[in-house]
């Protein structure tokens, strides 16, 4: 379970405050969507949960299964179960995708005191997960995300999510840059991971993604706060009426 209490965050080297006392809870097994206009702080929220260093937390706390994760580095948060599917996955030239996947899986196993994966087991797991997402073997041999299309990068994010089996998945605008077929593949990949022990925080501008990943709850974010919470119908309502009434209210 993810609980965010009164989170106040600014950009580290600037005076610009982005999150202004944000409260949010995502229960195990829940798929929560966050919608909101550009600049409302959605991506910042995802980065702050994952442990990016460019921000300064002025107040509040983020609890994962009751434990405050704010003091942890990004790798420790990942080992604790946080996974961020990036809006713009980074290209890492020179690092083979398989090498990276193995290093990531073993690092987390090590942090949890588990033995390293044996290579045959690792390859079997990767191949099985890749097949489900329509990821060609040839892509796994290339350097991580280098020369991948937008859709391939997003599928690679979901592959990592499947292999690392986190307890809290954050999807930051996973639908951006995807055509409708790619969107369906990615959404199917996410839906296959829905589980009563796993929470999802799905950040999106558009309702479209939520046709494929149907949320339990929808939160509207504006000016660094959650200003409205409802069921999945709230997304449809927003699609019709826009964000204007909420941004004014905030």
């Amino acid at each position, binding site marked *: 379970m993810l609980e965010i209490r009164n989170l106040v965050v600014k950009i580290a080297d600037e005076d610009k405050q982005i999150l202004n006392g944000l409260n949010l809870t995502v229960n195990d097994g829940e798929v929560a969507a966050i919608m909101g206009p550009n600049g409302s702080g959605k991506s910042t929220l995802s980065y702050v949960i*994952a*442990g*990016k*260093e460019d921000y300064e937390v002025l107040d509040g706390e983020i609890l994962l299964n009751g434990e405050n994760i704010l003091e942890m*580095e*990004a*790798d420790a*948060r*990942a*080992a604790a179960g*946080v*996974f*961020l599917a*990036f809006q713009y*996955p*980074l290209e*890492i*030239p*020179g*690092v083979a995708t398989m*090498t*990276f996947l193995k*290093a*990531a899986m073993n*690092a*987390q196993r090590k*942090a949890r005191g588990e033995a390293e994966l044996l290579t045959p087991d690792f390859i079997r797991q990767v191949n099985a997960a890749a097949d489900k997402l329509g990821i060609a073997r040839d892509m796994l041999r290339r*350097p991580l995300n280098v020369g991948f299309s937008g859709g391939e990068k997003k599928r690679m994010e979901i592959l*990592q999510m499947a292999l*690392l089996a986190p307890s809290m998945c954050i999807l930051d605008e996973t639908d951006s840059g995807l055509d409708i077929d790619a969107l369906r593949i990615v959404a199917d990949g996410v839906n296959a991971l829905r589980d009563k022990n796993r929470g999802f925080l799905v950040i999106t501008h558009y309702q479209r993604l939520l046709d494929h990943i149907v949320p339990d709850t929808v939160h509207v974010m504006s000016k660094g706060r959650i200003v409205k919470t409802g069921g999945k119908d709230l997304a449809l309502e927003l699609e019709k009426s826009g964000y204007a009434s909420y941004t004014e209210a905030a």
Partner: protein
Amino acid sequence: MAVVTPLKTAAEQQLSQQFAQAKATLPGAGAVARLRDEAFAGFEARGLPNRRLESWRYTDLRSMLREAMPPAQAGERPQAIADRLALQTISGPRLVLIDGWFSAADSDLQGLPEGVTVRSLSEALAQAPDAFAAAFDLPEIARDDSALMLNAAFASDGVLIEVAPGVALAQPLLILSLGSGAREAAIVSRSRVVVGAGAKVAVVEVHESLGPSPTQNNQALAFSVADGAEVQHVRIVTRQRAETVQVQSLIVEIGKEANFASVALAVNCGVLRQQSFVRYAGEHSNAALRGINLLSRREHCDVTLVMDHAAAHGESRELFKTIAEGEGTGVFQGKVIVRPHSQKTDGGMKSHALLLNEGATMYNKPELEIFADDVVCGHGATVAQMDSEQLFYLMARGLPRPVAESLVLAAFVGEVTEFVGDESVREIIGREIDAWLAQRGAAPKSGAA
């Protein structure tokens, strides 16, 4: 303006005394003795290389050398040398230099194919000095360099390798240059590889120091690459004392339709100047110089190169990757000269550096001197910090910071390693890089040691 006559430094004075004393015993009479005299006179007129010279701007030997260490004597052989020799890691024939002196007993020439001859420089010069004076030949672009003058004056030994036309060596030829480190000494060697037309050879030189005493090295390796020949050169400089100051020169003359490719690795290198002079004497040839410099503490690595396109249709490629931490200093000076008739020259030069903390420094200075009008020449130089976005991405997948950093850094230099053809040599370079990365991962963040 008044004419300034620089005063000789203590080291320069010591060198004059040393040369006067050593002259009589240095190998090579006749033509070689005259050549040494001329070289030393040239050195005395110029003095030690210093920052007033554009080509030595960032490596001021005049101020770095407080004193000139005495010439290394033959015959030092501490146990560390035997231990190191037992760890033969590159398969194939090996030539061993100890403190610059060829050691026949430690060398292994089994497996040398017919058509390959190896001699020690000192023996060759003692037997037939006039015949081997060519070992000291320099192309025009290197003739004004006072470090090479010193090298010609003092070179006591080295190896002369001849590969007959058409001979292809299956395994790399290793020149293992070990410093005994038994006492402070100047190690001066000159080696030359003559590659016949259409021959194919890989030469790997490894420079390591095994004892506690720093040294002053001035070592040169020259290649004469005949038409249609193919040469791969690798140089590894490692395990040097922090106070060791050395100049490693590479001199290459290439005939037509020939290939020369070099990869150099500097790690734990003390103060190192690597200078290369490449002259294209024939058309349709290509040469590539690439390298990796991993610098910690107060290490200094200066890569200075001149590519002289004196013939048309030549191709040159340079790619250097430097990572500096602590107070490490990297220098890249690359000059590409395209002579007036050298049309259709294709030159591409790149130097990229990552500085891991504020105390580290990189100087990049690409120069193009183009006198022909139908050429393609480009250069790129970057200095950056490690990409924090890449690091965050890797850490967000659970990789601890040192592991994420090592992955990014290994990938950064890995682009160069790929150009090493021989697998066992590539593995050794990979191990040196991994060891450096592991050591920095384990070291305190300050980087100063």
